[in-house]
């Protein structure tokens, strides 16, 4: 699948800098899983981090730090810690149950596999949602949305950037048509009215930046899942 709507430079820079909150970071990671174009751009921004690390004014470490570090690797060699495997291959403590019905036999994107995924809940005519809980940040709010064909969502603005990754089906709004693999990033100043395309239901993963401001359409959608 080839994406046509990508993460913005600013978002990828924040991800590279480690400054994107966990919820949006999960949505963007889901986009990256199928988008080599954005992965290459992210790698370039991470290289910006590397370059900034090279040119930074170094701060002296306290006396003894170097000896402590050499001592730590000696200890490490004597009694190696459990081999440090990449996070992905580590067995996951909180492996979530897959949502009871992911229509169309969709496979959960890799970044979602460690998340706990709640049951679908009816939250409006033709709209269901499921809360996604992140293993390392239970306070992050991410929602799977499943919206019927031709379903028109109310026009709304945002109180922070809204990140929406299409997994199945498609929707359109004033800014274009979003197909599987596409990421929609909507600024807080922007208003839009998404309409699911007629050929089938649309499942997407959404996160709103900024957390607790529960006005606005997605705010209301997410409200039932907010653990205040």
């Amino acid at each position: 699948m080839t994406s046509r709507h990508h993460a913005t430079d600013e978002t990828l820079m924040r991800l590279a800098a480690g400054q994107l909150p966990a919820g949006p970071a999960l949505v963007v990671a889901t986009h990256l899983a199928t988008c080599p174009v954005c992965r290459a751009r992210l790698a370039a921004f991470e290289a910006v981090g590397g370059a900034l690390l090279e040119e930074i004014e170094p701060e002296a470490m306290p006396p003894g730090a170097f000896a402590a570090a050499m001592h730590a690797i000696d200890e490490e060699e004597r009694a190696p810690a459990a081999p440090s495997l990449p996070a992905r291959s580590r067995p996951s403590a909180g492996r979530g149950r897959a949502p009871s019905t992911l229509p169309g036999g969709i496979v959960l994107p890799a970044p979602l596999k460690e998340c706990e995924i709640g049951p679908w809940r009816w939250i409006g005519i033709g709209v269901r949602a499921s809360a996604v809980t992140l293993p390392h940040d239970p306070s992050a709010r991410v929602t799977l949305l499943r919206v019927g064909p031709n379903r028109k969502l109310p026009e709304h603005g945002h109180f922070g950037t809204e990140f929406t990754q299409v997994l199945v089906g498609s929707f359109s709004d004033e800014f274009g048509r979003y197909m599987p693999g596409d990421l929609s990033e909507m600024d807080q100043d922007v208003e839009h009215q998404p309409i699911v395309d007629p050929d089938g239901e649309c499942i997407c993963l959404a996160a709103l930046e900024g957390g607790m401001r529960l006005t606005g359409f997605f705010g209301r959608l997410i409200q039932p899942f907010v653990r205040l």
Partner: protein
Amino acid sequence: MPSADELNGLILRIARDRDRQAYGRLYRHFAPRVTAFLRKSGLAPNVAEELTQETMLSIWRKASYFDPARAGASTWIFTIARNLRIDHFRRSRVVEVTESEMPEESDPAPSGESMLLTSEREARVRTAMTALSDEQATVLRLSFFSEKAHSEIASELGIPLGTVKSRVRLALGRLRALLEGET
């Protein structure tokens, strides 16, 4: 100052020979930089030092995962420190899901852009950064390294918020144009 290739070589020696001397040289080069980065990003000096030690120990442990075809030494170490900082703030680990950990099956044929050799890409990033205006470089550095919101950066620099935002956007756009070779 060691070259990028020399730094890569030090990590490869650690991976291959558990080479303490190579580790020592790497430590002297990177520990003061990682600490400086962590302090600039708002951590207290003692926390920054602690996370720096953790970062350096991770390098020893994970040296065999280092792949200079994916990221150069500075970039790799930057991402380790960044991830430890994220963990420190008990945010999520999802940010770790970057190129290096992408499962192969979800990895369609790379585009021309992503086939750009890593060392070439990193060299181009550095060149591109020196081509930014001072103003652009300053907002880029501040927004990259510090947790500060754009509004705080604006008051720190004594310029309007809109100006900070547009400088960040311009800097990123310019960087991208330079990276894509449209100089």
